[in-house]
């Protein structure tokens, strides 16, 4: 508690006498994360400078920052990012459009479940990247094969979680709806779908991570454009600084999108939150 900076995590207790820090604007947890990042950056910057490590292999924050600024000035960088973004969005939207309806079918029909569950589970567990060589043979080395692998990566988390969300609908709610004369369709739209939304959103969140991974690995495997392609080029040129910029861009994109979906999820779950 000696490090207590203004509001503590629960926002109530204050360390007495720490006047100067009382107006510290960040929460305790945020402060600690921020500090650890700063310390890491400082070490990363100084250790190679002191000659304890070879900057050729580790680069330095300053070098990465400069590389980032340079790349932002290069039209080709945007071209590659645009290709990757298109691949991701196309594959992801397709996955969403197919996986949600099929997930609903899976969650509501026993027969469909009996037929589809075993192959789905097998495919869910095996990474779709296993199919990358096959997809490349079928669809070529350009965008189509990446769209397909994103589709596969995103499809399974969404379908599995949509199905589970519907299957785990509260039978008491279903019965109450029935008692008011709700038919199958009304139960589906008024009970199963709203009840499954948080679970669907969770599937989407997991799918974001898998989708991003799929784009990058797909391009790394074989490609003529995209962030993964850049990684390939900079990798063989030993450009640590630029490789790290690419890594940063990819993870920032994945992180932002995941946070966005998490927000949505929290909104959807708010009716569950205890007061």
């Amino acid at each position, binding site marked *: 508690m000696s490090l207590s900076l203004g509001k503590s995590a629960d926002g109530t207790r204050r360390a007495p006498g720490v006047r100067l820090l009382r107006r510290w604007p960040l929460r305790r947890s945020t402060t600690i994360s921020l500090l650890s990042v700063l310390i890491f950056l400082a070490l990363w910057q100084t250790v190679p400078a002191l000659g304890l490590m070879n900057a050729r292999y580790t680069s330095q924050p300053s070098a990465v920052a400069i590389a980032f600024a340079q790349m932002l000035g290069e039209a080709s960088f945007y071209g590659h990012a645009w290709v990757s973004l298109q691949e991701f969005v196309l594959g992801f939207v397709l996955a969403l459009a197919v996986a949600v309806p099929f997930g609903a079918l899976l969650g509501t029909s026993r027969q469909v479940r009996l037929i589809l569950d075993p192959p789905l589970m097998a495919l869910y567990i095996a990474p779709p990247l296993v199919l990358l060589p096959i997809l490349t043979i079928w669809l070529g080395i350009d965008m189509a094969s990446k769209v397909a692998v994103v589709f596969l990566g995103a499809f399974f988390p969404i379908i599995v979680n949509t199905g589970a969300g519907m299957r785990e609908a509260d039978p008491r709610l279903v019965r*109450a709806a029935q008692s008011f004369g709700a038919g199958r369709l009304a139960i589906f739209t008024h009970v199963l779908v709203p009840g499954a939304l948080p679970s669907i959103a969770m599937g989407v969140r997991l799918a974001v991570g898998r989708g991003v991974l799929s784009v990058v690995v797909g391009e790394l495997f074989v490609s003529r454009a995209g962030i993964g392609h850049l990684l390939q080029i900079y990798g063989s040129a030993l450009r640590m600084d630029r490789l790290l910029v690419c890594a940063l861009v990819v993870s920032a994109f994945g992180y932002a999108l995941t946070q966005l979906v998490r927000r949505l999820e929290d909104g959807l779950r708010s009716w569950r939150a205890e007061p």
Partner: protein
Amino acid sequence: MSHIQFRDLSVSYRRPKSDERFLAIDRISLDIERGSFVAVVGSSGCGKSTLLLAAAGLVSLASGRVVIDAAPVTGPGGHAAMVFQDASLLPWRSVLGNVRFGLEMRRWKRDDLTERALRHIRMVGLGDFADYHPHQLSGGMRQRVNIARALAVDPEVLLMDEPFGALDAQTREVMGNELLRIWERDRKTALFVTHDIEEAVFLADKVVVMGRDPGRIKDVVQVDLPRPRSPDMLDSETFVTIRRRLRESLAEDMASLRLVTEGV
């Protein structure tokens, strides 16, 4: 003619993990007069809920029939509305949304839905809570919403399955009084399941005692207490006599149950 008639009613269920079926209730016959309040008591598992589900058209019958208003019950959504124990409100809908839900399912005309729902929400004393969600309400308030939802659809018959079963004793008493106050207004035929003997006698014109293995009616007791009921009747001689008789009927069942469990 009686408003609700159960005639030789049997309902069977499948035993878990086998194809074998067993009788949850076995040839029950019971008449319920229009505008009367009938309570059903019995140890758990004796088929009280099943009896109500049969009246609501929510289970298929193994034999016999249920007749409401001279018409056999063939499925849900007809004359009866049901109040369940806790947790049957849609958690993502507000109080208003939940009361509207019943009306929407019964296909009431759109324009007066909200108006009608709000009127019933005020009737159960939740006028200030129409925009709250179920998780923001106490157990007693949630059951008020359940009652409002059922009454809003203007059912012929009100079926209540241990509606106060999850409430503490004090709230339960308040809710019982409240239910009677609301019920007195239009005296809809009511079938009320409870495991609380006092509650049954206090509320009902007639108490049905059920026994188990198989589920059947063991006793029917007329409650000749005047209405409106008031808490001081709980000490009246009539009340005490009826309570004793019910307790004895139920005790037999408990005794046989004990023998069964000890024998195993």
